């Protein structure tokens, strides 16, 4: 045990007991980030800020929300929206940030794909990131049920019904998940528990692992350049700040992030106060009615691409029911991103997509295809829409089947230093 001396001041007193100086060095002032990065590297901090915003606004909503199908709708729409001082603000903030956070997650994700930040030592970062995506999806879905409006109810009905497609246990599994034959009070209370306790705990834990897993292989940079972080850190500490390829997390990296966060929050508050319908569907301001299906049921925008993969197959193929194929494709879509580091067979070569010609094409095709899926996932699935959805679904599946092949070709090309035809 370290010797405890008479403290020279409060910080020293704390330092002897908590090693705060060391802690701040490790976490902030000597946590090294590459210098050659752009604003896309700020998305992690933006996500963290939005997550904090969700927690804080959620705490205030939790003070007045009542998880009971008889009370839920009015506790949200009357108590919180009309009576509580700034209740509307917390709700709008909560709803809008839940939607916007997915946009930032997608940007964060596609940044990682573009710059190859998911492989060669960074697999765990990618895997925990995708696990976070999954948990945020569950969090969004369970939260969407709570106001107990028409869309809450019918989205819950449709999504829990998906489990009915699992062979043998499907039907009883659906009843087990719901706690009733239909989405009912028991369903609301258990999803309330998931939303406010279990899932946030898991998310916090995953965030910790996600951050920790960043420490060992270090943050990637714009050119995917590999260099010795310790050497560069030494340079920085000896005053060669301009020559060094790294900057400390605090204050250099964060000073740029705060600026990006400022821009993001400016747009965010515009959305919260003036343009919120995209995140708070008007249909959900009608109380849930299990005997009346809304004319159009669609999930929130961030689930649309996988929803469209689910319903892309609208006809039976070779005796297999359309619904089962759709469910299999949906399952595929939800795990395939997880496997990305292992589907990329050019394992040793980390480079931004514009230096990988085949991968570059693959990347933009994937992005465009997912946008097509997203847009058609909301439209009524009739006539031409159904065929576009089918085509985009097939494209999605084919793209991921092709990925190992094209990355293998790329690896065999031995042209990683450029000059490949």
């Amino acid at each position, binding site marked *: 045990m370290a010797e405890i001396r008479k403290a020279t001041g409060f910080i020293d007193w704390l330092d002897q007991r908590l090693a705060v100086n060391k802690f701040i060095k490790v976490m902030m002032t000597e946590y090294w980030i590459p210098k050659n990065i752009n604003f896309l590297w700020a998305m992690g901090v933006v996500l963290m800020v939005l997550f904090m915003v969700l927690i804080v606004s959620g705490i205030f909503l939790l003070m007045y929300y009542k998880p009971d199908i008889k009370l839920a709708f009015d506790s949200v*729409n009357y108590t919180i929206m009309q009576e509580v001082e700034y209740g509307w603000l917390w709700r709008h903030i909560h709803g809008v940030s839940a939607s916007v956070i997915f946009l930032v997650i997608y940007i964060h994700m596609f940044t990682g794909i573009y710059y190859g930040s998911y492989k060669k030592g960074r697999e765990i970062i990618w895997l925990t990131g995708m696990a976070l995506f999954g948990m945020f999806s569950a969090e969004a879905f369970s939260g969407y049920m709570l106001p107990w409006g028409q869309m809450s109810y019918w989205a819950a009905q449709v999504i829990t019904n998906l489990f009915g497609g699992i062979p043998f246990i499907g039907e009883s599994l659906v009843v087990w998940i719901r706690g009733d034959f239909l989405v009912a009070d028991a369903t609301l209370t258990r999803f309330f528990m998931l939303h406010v306790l279990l899932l946030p705990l898991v998310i916090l834990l995953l965030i910790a692992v996600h951050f920790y897993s960043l420490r060992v292989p270090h943050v990637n940079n714009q050119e995917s350049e590999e260099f010795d972080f310790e050497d560069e850190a030494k340079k920085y500490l000896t005053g060669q700040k*301009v020559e060094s390829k790294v900057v400390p997390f605090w204050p250099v990296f964060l*000073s740029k992030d705060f600026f990006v966060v400022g821009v993001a929050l400016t747009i965010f508050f515009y959305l919260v106060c*003036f343009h919120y319908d995209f995140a708070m569907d008007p249909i959900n301001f009608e109380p849930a009615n299990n005997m009346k299906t809304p004319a159009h049921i669609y999930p929130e925008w961030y689930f*649309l691409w996988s929803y469209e993969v689910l319903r892309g197959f609208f006809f039976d193929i070779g005796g297999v029911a359309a619904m089962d194929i759709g469910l299999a494709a949906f399952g595929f879509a939800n795990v395939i991103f997880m496997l990305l580091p292992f589907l990329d067979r050019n394992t040793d070569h980390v480079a931004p997509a514009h230096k990988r010609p085949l991968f570059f094409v693959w990347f933009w095709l994937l992005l465009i295809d997912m946008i097509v899926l997203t847009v058609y996932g*909301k*439209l009524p699935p009739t006539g031409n829409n159904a065929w576009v959805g089918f085509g985009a679904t097939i494209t999605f599946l084919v793209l991921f089947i092709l990925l190992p092949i094209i990355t293998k070709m790329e690896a065999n090309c031995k042209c990683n230093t450029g000059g490949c035809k």
Partner: protein
Amino acid sequence: MRELKILAVVIFFTAVVYWGVEPFAHSQMHPHVAPADFAFKDLGVNSKKGDAAKGAETFMSAGCIGCHGVSSQGMAAPMDHASASASFGVVPPDLSTAGAIYDKNFLAALIKDPTKALKVEHKFNESRPHPMIAFFGLGGDIDQEIADIVAYLQSIAPVTPMSDKQVFADACQRCHDIKYDKLMSTTDKEALKAYMGTVPPDLSMMIRSKGTEYLTTFINNPQKQLVGTSMPRVGLSEKAQNQVIAYMEKVGDSKKAEREDLGYKLIGYMVLFTLLAYAWKVKIWREVH
């Protein structure tokens, strides 16, 4: 500059997704309808000039008060709400303010042919007659007689402007609740369910679920937005209808003014925050570039 190029790419794809899932998708799901017609052109025009004094007599002889009350003139409704619900399916309106809130043209057409004016011909026919009996005239020129009745109703309508809530109560509360403002339908719920096929929805949050634009065309002509609905056309004048919507907004979106006011402040604060953050960033990065 590279960062700006990247920013442009991010903005472009975000905008395409937004356009696809919001304006484009909604235009596909909710086809645009013609704007509200407050002249009720489909009902024709009664060009006769009404005489309020004669109208008062016609009003009494036509038997209107067999069902309707005119409380401002000391004529109570012949039945209480419960028995009126049971006999008619819905409580007949008190006509004290009818001349003020309903369009003149609409009132004339309504008296002559209720199912047509109300646009409920798909529900009511000879085998199931509408509870309001059409006025067949007293023997003279029927259009003149109707114009007189309308003139009479307008003459007894309140002179001072009515409150938004009062317009709502007179126009909508016979069937609809606004429970967030403790207004409950005057008609009994069971009777309403039998009469309308379903209990008409509570309108507390309707302003948020439907929005002003939809409500404007819907109240003016429900069939336009919801073919086959059992809700009748209400026939409100443009001013009265705007008052109804304003009232719904007061109840269901009561913090709108606060939201918009605070919106400017929050955005203003964040703009300053961003500028300061930028200045600080430039200062810090000067050392490392």
